[in-house]
């Protein structure tokens, strides 16, 4: 009991931030599964969703802003795919990766231009930011909502992938890009749907994340993006449940390390974990072994 009493605040914070990383990590892992592309711009789509919310809420009611923010993220993500990735589809994989890095910098610097480099305060969504007390921990409502919402969304996503036609197409494309296009699957549509799902989840993640950590500047997407990427690699890039588990592990460990007084090393831990995983088990927890077909 004493243990729980001391550590509950950290565990709660870890689960919450883990859930938020998970929502971003799904975008990374799905795009990688299908395109074999690490979409570096994903963290910046996340940041932009937050930024748009800041501007939107000043003129629109909350429910409409939330819907529009999600729509905005979807439009932004699919546009990036159409403009920056699609023309390079037959190019070497390195070119498309570099294009992704370029888009990431473009989005960051455009945000710098719009905001003037100053941190914007995320609007208060009252019921999300309400203070609640559980046992020894006092925290925000969003801390409790996040893991529940994340799990629900992930279950829905897994159902979609397992039991619908588009889900089947996605699985087929991720297994073998060329053969599935020969089988009559509309590759472009599948890829668009992937980006739509990834970006919508990133937008939801941004609402939860920034309700908890209320400052947004052009670099806000970089760190959560990186950590979500590590989570995706940890869980086995390409695997949705893997990314979610990885995100929770990273979120919780990070906070426990901080709680143990090793605050200076909390970020180092995340990246050391990345290195160890890449060395010991490159395919991650749930990753599939890559069989090179001749």
């Amino acid at each position: 009991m004493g243990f729980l009493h001391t550590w509950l605040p950290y565990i709660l914070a870890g689960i919450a931030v883990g859930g938020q990383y998970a929502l971003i990590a799904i975008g990374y892992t799905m795009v990688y599964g299908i395109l074999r592309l690490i979409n570096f711009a994903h963290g910046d789509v996340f940041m932009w969703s937050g930024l748009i919310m800041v501007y939107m809420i000043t003129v629109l009611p909350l429910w409409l802003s939330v819907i529009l923010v999600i729509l905005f993220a979807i439009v932004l993500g699919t546009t990036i795919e159409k403009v920056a990735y699609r023309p390079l589809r037959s190019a070497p994989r390195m070119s498309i990766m570099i294009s992704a890095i370029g888009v990431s910098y473009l989005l960051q610097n455009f945000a710098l231009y719009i905001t003037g480099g100053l941190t914007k305060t995320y609007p208060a969504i009252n019921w999300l930011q309400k203070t609640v007390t559980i046992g020894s921990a006092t925290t925000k409502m969003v801390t409790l909502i996040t893991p529940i919402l994340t799990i629900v969304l992930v279950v829905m996503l897994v159902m979609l992938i397992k039991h619908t036609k588009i889900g089947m197409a996605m699985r087929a494309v991720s297994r073998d890009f060329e053969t599935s296009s020969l089988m009559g699957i509309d590759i472009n549509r599948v890829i668009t749907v992937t980006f739509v799902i990834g970006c919508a989840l990133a937008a939801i993640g941004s609402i939860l994340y920034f309700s908890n950590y209320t400052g947004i500047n052009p670099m806000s997407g970089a760190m959560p993006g990186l950590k979500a990427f590590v989570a995706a690699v940890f869980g086995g890039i390409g695997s949705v449940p893997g990314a979610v588990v990885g995100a929770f592990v990273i979120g919780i460990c990070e906070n426990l390390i901080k709680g143990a007084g090793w605050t200076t090393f909390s970020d180092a831990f995340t990246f050391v974990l990345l290195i160890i995983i890449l060395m010991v088990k490159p395919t991650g927890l749930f990753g599939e072994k890559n069989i090179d077909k001749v």
Partner: protein
Amino acid sequence: MKKFLALTMTLLLVLTFCVGCGGGDSGSGGGDTIKIGVFEPASGDNGAGGKQETLGIQYANKMQPTVDIGGTEYNVELVIVDNESDNSKAVTAAQNLVSQNVSIVLGSYGSGVSIAAADVFADANVPAIGVTCTNPQVTADCEQYFRICFLDPFQGTVLANYAYENGMRKAYCLSKLGDDYSVGLVNYFVEAFKALGGEVVEEQFPDKNSDFTSYVANAKKAGCDVFFSPVSTEAAALIIDQAEAQALGMPLLAGDTWDSNVITGAAKGKNVDIVVTTFYQEGGNPDFDEGIKAWFEEDSSAMTNNGGNTDLAAVTAMGYDAYFVALEAMKAAGSTDPAEILAALPSLQVSGLVCGDVSFNETGDANKTEAFVKKCNTETGEWEFLTKQSAQ
């Protein structure tokens, strides 16, 4: 077709670049102009504070656009660069100023960038006046750097005295890894607080961190009486938010950086207790207060740079003072030559300033003996004057 498009776009980019350069040159023509470099962050962690400090300098320039040097009337031109709150970019920004032949440099907000740029000013032998960079290293090894504000050893002691006199015995100290200002100030605070008989818990957070949940939880767990975190305003807003969410239950204590409307904005309506030390209290010079507020009202871009309201930050007042110190130095030197202005600085004495008289000691630091202690009124979102605290 594709090639044509690529060519057009490349040409367009090149042309924009050329136009940009051309625009920059046109300002420097004309005979009797003296340039003052403004070395401040307009983006990054300290962007908000840097902009407010620049506002003070701009307002001073608006009030007094000319200076009489040796019988000739010179127009003062401000050359403003953005050091992006980044130690590596600060050097480039400083070189930019030097290459534009400024006679003197003002800034910066944030000690790290000033320390990084000191060598550039030293090599070019251009004098620099630090406005609110409080780390001792800024002036310690650099003969060209002076400053008009108090120092961290002084500020740390003042804060420790304040905390101890108000019955706080155990302090939680949070600084940012690799940030000269917060790490330095925390060290001086810890030294002074321990000397008084207090107890401290020290922690640091990494760059780009926005999750302060665990730090607030740690402070609670350790049973501290005060949360001392003199970090950038960006991080501060997040800390305040978490302090409320977790019902921190102890006052937040910080240095001059927190004296900003970013903080009052973040704390408004929240159940938090914030105390800071600073350079200036609104009301200290009513003429200045009214004048600059009227300027914010009529100039919308100034208002935006001040964070969207007319709340006055101490750094703005300090920026205003720095400009007049620079003008006095030029008058005393009777020359526009940076080397002669530099020679005139050590013996300079300036009175009639907003934040008190300025004279320099042998390392180039201003002689200051008192700091203002302010408390945030979370109902109105304004600063309230508490007391003047000295280091003794």
